[in-house]
């Protein structure tokens, strides 16, 4: 039993390596921040493309739906390995893009960002879609009858209402994104799990892993509470039947 605690809860060891692990954890947060911005935009674009009306947009809708289905189905780990192992071979792409070192970040960082963005774009697109479809059709019809185009109606009437409906599920996606940033360790990007395992390899002590877990808990627990609050607020609104009048 004491061996178990020594292996996983050696507080002296955690103290010795605190800054090293924290610095690595900050790398997770950087990936998270960059991917969150990209995936939220990419997802919105996908959701809007998916909602395009009429026959002439059938191919667009088809491609969008195929993309979303595909990237929701492929394990993220495989996407990361395929991108980091595949893109560099595409020699028709300029080397600075194939093997990016932008903003002082090494290429595995950008491969990880690209993979997570592609996957989480698909997931957030579905959340946006749920929001857009929850706005009554009458809103779109009314906007169109006032002479707005489909895009104008989306931009000024439907999407503003849709986004007020989805913060809770979207935050859930972001929570799972933050945790999935650790997967980038598989292509040797020095984030917290890679560093923890590196420390484990050096010292045979797993406490750095627990320290890393603690950092994640510290960030994610408040996020989870916010989700709870948002859901409670939403249900209050629905109970009063007033959420439609937000705009």
């Amino acid at each position, binding site marked *: 039993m004491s*061996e178990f605690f020594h*292996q996983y809860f050696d507080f002296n060891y955690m103290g010795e390596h605190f800054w090293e692990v924290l610095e690595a954890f900050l790398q997770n947060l950087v990936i998270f921040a960059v991917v969150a911005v990209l995936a939220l935009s990419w997802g919105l674009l996908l959701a809007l493309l998916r909602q395009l009306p009429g026959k002439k947009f059938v191919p667009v809708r088809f491609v969008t739906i195929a993309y979303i289905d595909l990237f929701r189905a492929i394990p993220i780990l495989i996407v990361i*390995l395929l991108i*980091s*192992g*595949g893109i*560099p*071979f595409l020699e028709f792409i300029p080397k600075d893009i194939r*093997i990016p070192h932008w903003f002082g970040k*090494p*290429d*595995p960082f950008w491969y990880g960002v690209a993979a997570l963005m592609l996957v989480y774009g698909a997931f957030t697109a579905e959340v946006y879609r749920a929001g857009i479809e929850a706005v009554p059709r009458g809103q779109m019809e009314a906007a169109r009858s006032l002479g707005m185009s489909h895009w104008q109606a989306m931009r000024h009437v439907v999407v503003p209402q849709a986004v007020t409906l989805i913060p809770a599920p979207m935050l859930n996606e972001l929570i799972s994104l933050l945790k999935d940033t650790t997967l980038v*360790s*598989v*292509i*040797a990007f*020095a984030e917290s799990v*890679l560093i923890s*395992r*590196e420390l*484990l*390899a050096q010292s*045979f002590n*797993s406490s750095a892993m627990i320290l890393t877990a603690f950092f994640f808990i510290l960030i994610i627990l408040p996020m989870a509470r916010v989700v709870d609050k948002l859901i409670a607020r939403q249900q209050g609104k629905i109970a009063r039947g007033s959420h439609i009048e937000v705009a």
Partner: protein
Amino acid sequence: MSKTRLAALFAVFLVAIAALAVAGCGGSDDSSSTGSETGASTEESGGGGEPLTVGSDIPYPPFEEGKPGEYTGFDIDLMDAIGERIGRTPEYTDTSFETIFRDVAQGKFEAVISAATITEEREQTVGFSDPYYLSEQAILVKEGSDITGLADLEGKVVAAQQGTTGLELGKEKANASELRPFPEGPDAVNALKAGTVEAVIIDAPVAQNAVEKSGGVEIAEKVPTEEEYGIALAKDNTQLLEEINKGLEEVIADGTYTTIYEKWFNLEPPKQFQG
């Protein structure tokens, strides 16, 4: 109507999963039956006894490779030969290298054969058998690279495998601009071929294997490390340690070692391992 259709779809889905699960079980049944067959053959050769649980980080070709139930490689063949001598059939568990010594110390398996170098640091956690292999590190580069050895790695992006002596060598002597510790060796070689790293420091036989099987890469330099591989056991398991050492001695003496070595490395073994 739509509800019943949904239910039907769900039922089909469940049946499909069940079918896959059954097929999976069938597969493992097969492997366990082949396992007992090999067990029977050891009994004929005077063995028997309970299986010997062995941990290894697979794949690490040519030391360990293959699918669960049909693992093969230099380490595996050697361990099988030793197992035969001591009358216990090895049963392999694929595990991760950076936890492997802790796991054997805690008794998750009885022995570790995983191209593991004997170091003082590791000897604090586990006990090692007599050395069964002498190793060198290789600097693996892309074909036509102007890197000719360790000295040229200064300022370059270099990869190695996490928890290995290759990584230590890189830290101590390479002076690279960035040293990337990949969790698995093949991913490091892949990164070299993709051009995201300029060199990989890895065990020489693994490098040789990559040169032969994957192509496009070559060994720039072999660095002798005075590394010896050993079979690791829990520190207090002295009885098994003695048995394994004796088994290894026999395997070397009767020439089995040379046969296995030549099979996997296309080379004559070092003198001390020739029978």
